[in-house]
């Protein structure tokens, strides 16, 4: 199946060839998870990926992906206040 992934903030430096917001299309086996996708795109660095959206919904690494999913990844970021 085919999914797209986009990298934001400091994750961008792992793929400097991609313009800001440019999606990367990945071919994955059926039933692949979000973690599998990250492994395929960024290699083993799960620590740096903190926020994962699949089609705009926050998901965890074990989430199973489907054909055409739009994945967006962030390192830890925040704003406003706490």
């Amino acid at each position, binding site marked *: 199946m085919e999914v797209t992934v986009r990298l934001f903030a*400091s994750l*961008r430096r792992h793929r*400097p060839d991609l313009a800001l917001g440019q999606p990367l299309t990945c071919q994955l086996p059926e039933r692949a998870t979000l973690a599998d996708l990250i492994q395929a795109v960024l290699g083993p660095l799960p*620590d*740096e990926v903190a926020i994962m959206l699949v089609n705009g919904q926050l998901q965890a690494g074990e989430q199973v992906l489907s054909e055409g999913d739009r994945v967006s990844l962030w*390192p*830890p970021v925040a704003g406003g206040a706490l």
Partner: protein
Amino acid sequence: MTPALPDSSEVAIIGGGLVGCAAAYYLTQQGASVVLIEQNGVGSGASGRSGGGVRQSARAAAEIPLAIQAVALFSGLADELGLDIEYVQRGNLRLVESVDYIRPMQVDIARQQGQGLNVRWLEQSEVCELAPALQRESLLGASFCPTDGHANPLKVTAGFAAAARRRGARILTGCSVTGFRQLDSGLVQLATTAGRLRARNVIIAAGAGTARLCQASGFDLPLANMRYESLVTEAVRPLFDAMFGVASADLFFRQTRHGSVHFGGGLVLPADDETTTQDNLAAAAAHLARLVPALAQANLVRTWGGLDPSTPDGIPIIDCLGDNLLVATGFCGHGFALGPVVGRLLAAWVTRGQRPAELAGFERNRFAGWLQTRWTPTGSFEAVLAAVATQANAPGPNGAHSADPAAALPQEGDGPHVLVIDPSMCTGCRSCEVACAIHHDRVARPTQLRIQVAYERDDAYSPIVCLHCEEAYCMEACPFEALARGGPGSVIQVVDKNCTGCLLCVDACPYGGISYADDKGVVIKCDLCDGQPACAAYCAPGAIRFRRVDPATWDGMKQHATQHARLLSQGLT
């Protein structure tokens, strides 16, 4: 005779240095019409002022493949240009003078060998066999690359210019380009002091003028012009034929065809002029005399300085600013060898319309992910190491900073422990001031401080603190022996009972390192907190580090402090 500026040209080259002249030559070889514009004379900038080394060794990984091609090109260059360029291919030795450098040098040799370079370690005896003129006791070994060498940089540059001219290139000297603009038609328009010129392709190879020109035209390149200083002796008997450098990177030397020894090095600092500095030259001359005793009595006949832009990571930017607008810059003081091959690759880029594979890795966007956009480029042999240190302060793999700022630094100097200040890292938060006050006075306070932050602009600030100079003006100035060396190393401390508060030391210190404490009636200054400075511990960005200083850094800090101490009372927080 300078030809007139035409209205248009297929290719326009800005800068009559080695890269520009070589590009002009190779382009005319492809039949292109070329106009080259040079503000002074051919080779009048960094190219003509270069040290002349043609080496592959001791380069950053990204440059080694280019340098190997460059050496292959140099072999046939005299024939190609029809000119004796005084090319001598008898190797480059990078001499190791201190045990601290043996291990790093051997690691570096292995790295270069891994990239296919013929380079190896020479023991002391082998070095002296190869170059008997060197003082054996001063050396511990060297890296040796037999295919390296040196040449006459002015002749190479002039040779390319003449050959290009012969093939029809128009070379205009005494004409400056003040700006460029990409037109909707796809052409690039140059504004020059001799009028306008439109070109289908433009190559910017303007050396120290590149940053300003690009900035004026809307392109901000991370460049800083650095000054390199050279000296030449009278002609002496033949001593050696290889090219030499030293592991600490503050000296290079070679003997020219007619016998003079061309050498240089020392402190490389940001500058906008080509003057030379007495201290620098004296240090280089003393260093050379130590290594080559035969030169101790030789007369110096000339000194000069040259400017070359540096990039933050110590390797050049060779990139396109637009589809038909190329730039080659930031050679960081070691571009002579690369000049011809870069010129040839730029010519190929223009002719074929696509980036040659060899130039991958020199794009300017490699700096896009760096934390700070202001740099303190080093341009020296240590540029790569410095770049590593800079990056260590950017968010790491998990976006976090190393908890121990000292851990980010790969090597220390061999001087005493002092507070080593890096203004490029300072965020102006004044944590150092308050940490110092709490440590010494048990209160937080904004005055009567031993360390203070000087603000130059909204984006430039740095701490000012005692540098614990080896030759301390403050101690010389004090009539009462109220300043004394004490504690570990060379710490200068105030002897309160002797201090009369006369302030002679405050006036004598050009670095802003001493203050007066109203409530105590004595002067106060940094005492390095018995070896655990509070300011360094509390400096989150790592602008203050307590470590052994190397002389070049120390001098740089002194110069910086001299310029900035006066800002302390300007209140520009």
